[in-house]
């Protein structure tokens, strides 16, 4: 009988240690500790993301977009294909950068170790992190320099890939389908106004745009173009999107300048 109890204890202990293994995180040479992450989570994150990580914290009703529900393990900003788990470094990058135009601030004031600990704790909210491996990260080839030809090809793809049906012909986020869009939880969501020149949610670099077009933004209507476009074509679209932003910036500065001159 005693033997049986002790062997049962061993099994329980083994299971517990397995769970804790699954709750580690690795970013660079740092290893995250879920236990430390929990203390940080309860101090900084719980008000929006909630005690159980389901995005139903006390502040959630007042936020738009809604805080992420970690129990689903569906993340917007990833370097991995649509439908796959993010890398630890993807979650770390989101915590560090914050998500522009949302309630999620940058957590750079926390130490790097703190942020890696948070990643370890957040992964514990979904069983998927114990059952699945993250997807293979997108390979971002060197960016060819922009040219009128590349921009023209990008403009054609913006049309033929139906980007305009949501983002609008001039990228203002006012395409014919724009008003119908919801996120995966059924909350209304607006397509990004590419002409605003506003920072992109998952990081504001050409490489970031390439990555977002390739992986899609999971949990939102923005799909992955990994199958649909070749890397060169994705760069063409990136180059075209730049022209949408630039046109508007100059127009805006003109519009701002005019009243002053009167």
């Amino acid at each position, binding site marked *: 009988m005693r033997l049986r109890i002790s062997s049962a204890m061993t099994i329980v202990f083994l299971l*517990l240690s397995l*769970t*804790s293994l699954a*709750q580690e995180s690795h970013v660079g040479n740092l290893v995250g500790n*879920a*236990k430390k992450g*929990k203390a940080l989570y309860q101090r900084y994150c719980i008000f929006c993301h909630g*005690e*159980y*990580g*389901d995005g139903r914290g006390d502040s959630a009703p007042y936020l738009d977009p809604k805080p992420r529900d970690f*129990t*689903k393990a*569906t993340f917007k900003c990833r370097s991995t294909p*649509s*439908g*796959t788990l993010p890398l630890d470094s993807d979650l770390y990058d989101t915590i560090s950068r914050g998500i522009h135009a949302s309630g999620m601030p940058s957590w750079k004031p926390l130490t790097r170790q703190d942020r890696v600990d948070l990643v370890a*704790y957040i992964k*514990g*909210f*979904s*069983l998927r992190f114990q*059952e699945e491996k993250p997807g293979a990260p997108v390979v971002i080839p060197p960016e060819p320099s922009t040219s009128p030809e590349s921009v023209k090809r990008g403009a054609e793809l913006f049309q*033929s*890939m*139906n980007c305009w*049906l*949501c983002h609008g012909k001039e990228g203002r986020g006012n395409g*014919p*389908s724009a008003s*119908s*869009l919801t996120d*995966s939880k059924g909350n209304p969501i607006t397509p990004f106004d590419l002409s605003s020149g506003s920072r992109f949610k998952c990081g504001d670099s050409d490489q970031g745009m390439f990555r977002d077009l390739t992986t*899609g933004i*999971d*949990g939102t*209507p*923005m*799909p*992955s*173009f*990994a*199958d*649909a*476009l070749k890397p060169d074509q994705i760069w063409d679209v990136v180059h075209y999107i730049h022209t949408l932003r630039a046109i508007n910036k100059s127009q805006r500065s003109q519009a701002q300048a005019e009243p002053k001159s009167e």
Partner: protein
Amino acid sequence: MRNRVPIFRAPGRALLANNKAKESRYTMQPKCILGVIAAAFVLSLAPYVPAGAADAGAAGSLKGTAKIEGSTLKPTRIDMSSDPNCAKAHSTPATTEDVVIGANNGLANAIIYVADGLGDRTFEPPTQPAVIEQKGCQYKPHVLALQANQKLDVVNSDATTHNIHPLPTNNREWNRTQPHGLPIEESFAREEIAIPVKCNIHPWMHGYIAVFKHPYFAVTDKDGNFDLKDLPPGTYTIKAWQEKLGTQSQKITVGTGESKTVEFVFKAGS
């Protein structure tokens, strides 16, 4: 030890919240092992038993119809003018497919399936892929049923680009752009009835994909008819699911080699 407990509480709650999912995922493994053992056993007997003969003789079937009563529901026109490539594909305006009523009030696109009664039996997915086609900027079929881990071929026959975006609660969510002609292959690992599927580009496009862990399911045809073939003798809970009208349930016993008939009647507006 005192510290240990709270750390694991959070994932524990995630488990609870997703209890159904957890159960199906965790009970799967022993079943798989049993299945493998059973398969090995059957294979070892194979030379002595005429393959399939015993099964075919013993299996029963369940036929019937799904109907709708007191319905004034009519399909409504879909405005596809935002994408001329969609509008052009229809000589007469396309209509909605969420409630399609055929001859004798037969209800199309209902899923009839075995919800309970198969015990611990496990089933390999068929090798034949299930196919969902985007044609005329609508899903064909509007409601698709397939087995877990069965290959799903997504086809775009339209002269426009779609994105196919399932919104599951018990499977991975993905969202992929599909220009004309590009093949996409996917599958769903876990049972789920039914996963809404959307094209965000064309807001009128929506359909459903139901995933089963067994092969005993059917989608009613345009007049509401269905046929569940090769049903092993037994007592089953049979359910009928319709996207707008909900789910109905009946308990049915099918004897050896017996052909039973059953009718599901949905009431409109209830």
